[in-house]
């Protein structure tokens, strides 16, 4: 996997197949980036379960915060990492243990060795990307803000439907 350049189909495929996301590092503070992403993804039909030991037991956007991935009571398709890069190896170990299908690291987060370990365990990995931006890019919504989506199509339907 070339982690500098992902194909449109790789990213869109992950977004189409994912239903439940565990967001590690989710913040209860409404003006933090993780809160923006969680709220947006909920609006697009994803179930987003917050994981943050410092907020365990609290509610964020109607979901109970869990202290660790192991405590999330439902199957998780994707682990979304809102933590510094050095926290990634431990999160990957937990993601493997709970049988997650995807580990997605947010903008600025990258750990190549941990990514290789996850991929060896059959997990798809995305690094240094934001699922909100990528969902918007493929659904056409990112373009509403004047951004270059890089997507050129003569078709009415998109790879990801909002």
């Amino acid at each position, binding site marked *: 996997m070339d982690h500098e350049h992902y194909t449109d189909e790789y990213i869109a495929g992950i977004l189409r197949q994912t239903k439940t996301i565990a967001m590690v590092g989710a913040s209860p503070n409404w*003006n933090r980036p993780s809160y923006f992403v969680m709220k947006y993804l909920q609006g697009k039909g994803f179930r987003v379960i917050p994981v943050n030991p410092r907020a365990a037991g609290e509610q964020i956007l109607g979901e109970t915060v869990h202290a660790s991935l192991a405590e999330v009571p439902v199957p998780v398709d994707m682990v979304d990492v809102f933590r510094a890069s050095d926290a990634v190896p431990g999160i990957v170990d937990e993601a493997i243990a709970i049988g997650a299908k995807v580990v997605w690291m947010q903008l600025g987060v990258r750990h190549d060795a941990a990514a290789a370990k996850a991929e060896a365990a059959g997990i798809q990995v995305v690094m240094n990307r934001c699922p909100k931006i990528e969902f918007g890019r493929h659904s056409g919504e990112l*373009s*509403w*803000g*004047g951004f270059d989506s890089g997507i*050129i199509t*003569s078709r009415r339907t998109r790879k990801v439907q909002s």
Partner: protein
Amino acid sequence: MTDKSKFGFETRSVHAGAAPDPTTGARAVPIYQTTAYVFDDVDHAASLFNLQTYGYIYSRLTNPTVAALEERVASLEGGRGATGCASGHAAQMLAFFALMEPGDEFLAAKRLYGGSITQFGRSFQKFGWNVRFIDSDDPENFRRALTPKCKAIFVESLANPGGVVTDLEAVSAIAREAGIPFIVDNTMASPYLCRPIEWGADIVIHSTTKFLSGHGNSMGGMMVDSGRFDWTRSGRYPSLSEPEPAYHGLRFHETFGDLALTVHGHALGLRDLGAAMAPLNAFLTLTGTETLALRMERHCANAQKVAEFLEGHPAVAWVSYAGLKSSPYRALAAKYLPRGAGSVFTFGVKGGYEAGVKLVEGCELFSHLANIGDTRSLIIHPASTTHRQLSDEQRAAAGAGPDVVRLSIGIESVDDIIADLDQALQKGA
């Protein structure tokens, strides 16, 4: 983020930002002639006002037709995003509004469009933004003029009124070492001839009124962000790095990453300065950009022939066109404008101010007006018009002395363009 080289320039000129309308299947971008957009519910409205989701609120901030043009220009320039606005002057205002605090300085090349010299030198002073004009022929002059209060360097890639090419790579290196953004007005070259971001520009400014629109029928401006500048590192760009009270303490750069300046351009710049682009103008400009490559090829070919004709004309004292062998900017043009030196340039008529006025008034195909980048050939005498508000000294520095005539060569039959200039020069002689 995205592999920008996946599609060629001409393909992006036609298609970028303009997928079929998902609701109706309309193939051309519809003109969304609406001021406002309904909210699904109060929570959706809150998400929009908090900038938590993508969507439209009010056309002063964003509009679907304008957004299509923003994406197209961002794509053509190799930028991350763009903010469309009412004019090129509005785009300059948006860029400096995000960067400057009262008491700050910026450096600008001495040779600029006369209207920019006035905007920077006079109106910006009312905000406490201080400009210093620099002779850009030696890029080191910018380094020598840097101060701790300096927040940006501004140049035109191909300078108006014409013939001057800026050494973008050299100036961008100086800006990078100083840790300040490099802003390039690329109006005269258009992204077909030059893409400043490839040479290190952080922000690109356009008057889309000119070659992008291309037909002299619609006003517009664009601030294109490369997405590469680190607004947080130095702590000197608080509008982008510090909590924004108007959005409950949100930090733009932290929250939006490489999208930050474009989000700021809409959510603060257009919201508070109010200089929005009209949807109809965005539509006309989208149509114009579809033929940008074809038009620029012909503009440049015609301009080259006209410049060569004028250089051999007995009534002409000098010609400043970077495509001529005689131009001191020929080497820079070969590097930065390999497909052509543009179609706007100046020349000097023998006989000074009076001869310049007579020439302009003697033309029958050239239109005497204050614009450039039209399909039609245009002529103006800057000293009596566009640069009239400057002092004699400023006019000379800007390359707009009393004998100077500026041409914007159109895409008519080149023999007709040359014949019109010839007859008008003979009338004046």
